[in-house]
């Protein structure tokens, strides 16, 4: 009879209406600022520069090889090489970026810079609560604003960071026999932090980062 389909539909919405009070998992939404969804480990947002140790400038892994600048599809990275050299994460003397800017109003979070970086120096952040008051100044991040500690990297992407550290340690071990590697030893403690369980769902990096320049610079 005409109308039975409508009644069935009404029953369905009524079931959902009652169900929304009965079962929490039905709810599509969460009350955002108070309640946050668990972070998914792989999620990415904007790139940052990893540094080892405590001094962001001394520990910066980037050697300003400018590969990311060339490969970046929207061309949002701008690098100037330094004229002098400093030891890199492995201990080799390398250039460092005199200037490293990322225009995050142009960046489209594609992760290609991370993929092409041979030095594991640039990684993807997953902080998303950005805001800026100055449309022009605040959206171009310089290298200080971009740098994050290796600990922070471990916090947001534990599995990936553990792999990276293992690779770096191997590279360092290869480089170690050669005598001039005092910087490598200094950088070594960065490996200390144990990686969280490599479970995709489990990562809930809600604790404030130990050294989280993103919050300071944007807050």
């Amino acid at each position, binding site marked *: 009879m005409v109308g039975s389909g*409508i009644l069935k539909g009404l029953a*369905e919405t009524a079931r959902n209406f009652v169900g929304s009070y009965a079962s929490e998992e039905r709810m599509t939404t969460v009350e955002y600022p108070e309640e946050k969804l668990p972070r*998914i480990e*792989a999620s990415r947002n904007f790139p940052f520069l990893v540094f080892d140790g405590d001094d962001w400038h001394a520990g910066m892994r980037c050697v300003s090889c400018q590969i990311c600048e060339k490969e970046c599809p929207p061309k949002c990275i701008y690098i100037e090489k330094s004229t002098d050299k400093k030891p890199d994460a492995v201990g080799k003397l390398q250039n460092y970026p005199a200037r490293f800017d990322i225009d995050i109003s142009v960046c489209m979070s*594609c992760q290609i810079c991370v993929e092409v970086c041979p030095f594991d120096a640039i990684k993807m952040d997953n902080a998303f609560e950005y805001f800026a008051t100055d449309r022009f100044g605040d959206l171009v991040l310089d290298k200080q604003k971009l740098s994050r500690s290796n600990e922070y990297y471990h916090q947001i992407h534990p*599995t990936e960071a553990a792999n990276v550290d293992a690779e770096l340690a191997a590279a360092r071990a290869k480089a170690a026999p050669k005598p001039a590697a005092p910087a490598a030893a200094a950088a070594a403690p960065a490996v200390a932090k144990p990686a969280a369980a490599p479970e*995709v769902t489990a990562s809930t990096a809600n604790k404030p980062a130990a050294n989280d320049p993103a919050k300071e610079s944007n807050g």
Partner: protein
Amino acid sequence: MSATATLPPAAMLLDSEEGSQYLEISMGPHHPSTHGVFRMNVVLDGETVIKLKPVFGYLHRNHEKIAENETYLGSMPYTDRLDYFCSLTNNWGYALAVEKLAGIEVPERAEYIRVITAELTRLQNHASLVGFLMQDMGASGTPLMYAFREREKILDLFEALTGARMMCNYMRFGGCRCDLPAGWLDWAKKVVASFPKFLDEFETLLVGNEIIMARTQGVGVLSRELAISAGITGPMLRASGVNYDLRKVDKYGIYDRFSFRVPLGDHGDVYDRYMMRLLEMRESLKILEQAMKDIPEGPFTDPKTKVRNFRPKPGEAYGRIEAPKGELGYYLISDGSPNPYRYRVRPPSLINLTVLEDMCLGRNVADVVITLGSVDIVLGEVDR
């Protein structure tokens, strides 16, 4: 009353020989039902459409030109932004074309991952399309919210795999960017297993509803002949009764390994088009179950293919896949340099709009809205 004399009502009416009896309205680009910044210039006689001209280009950013100035890899994230609902199938289409051009073999596991992600994409695209269509019919968002509830679960899966919910940028020439993370497959199995429950709910809510039947049956009819001639593809073509699914015809990837059926409609109206989507979701679930059962271990990408400095030999290739909206093709010409000499996207949304006027003439405004809704367009792809 002098203030009102500045804009006579005659200006609202078309100046035609028959005396100004037609009303010309511009639906869009800011209109709640045009699925983005799409515009239709509609001429109405009363509420009957007597002329309809789509106007494109509000979202045009010359994607093809950008890609021609970009490396082969650099275009991959831009393909995400074509049909921003289905970035993974866009990735696949582009990767497929490049693989054809450069003759790259894709490892088995990568093929399975591609099928899984593509079918998940199809699920979320179809579910939300049906939701949007109901929204166009005025259903206060309830079906759309149900669809989004399920879509959210699939997007979480995408995020865990690729790092992004919509702009995945996941596939690479010769495979995928990264392997499935630990535990992902079990999670995906759970999502897929709970999906039929949602489909049942959706169908109870929608399929028997007399109002939906009355609104959609016999509306926006597209004949089989016109559909073929106009190059309509995807569910819209199959709703007109043409058995043409690239997963069956081209058997690209590893689709010949899965058993699934292709639903076909007989009337080619809006009702058939939306039922096609509902039925295709069931079939996609079948493919997903098989793929997730059979997925082998192994490399997730072809190790011989370089990420950087990728220069295919000169030549050209056209690769196409069955995207949720229809046939998505990429045509590439290489001149041996790191950038493609010519990069062309064959957007299903745009070509499916070819027949919009044919489907809408003689119907009224409300029918135009749902006919457009049933075409399933995304303006990122239409305008590129």
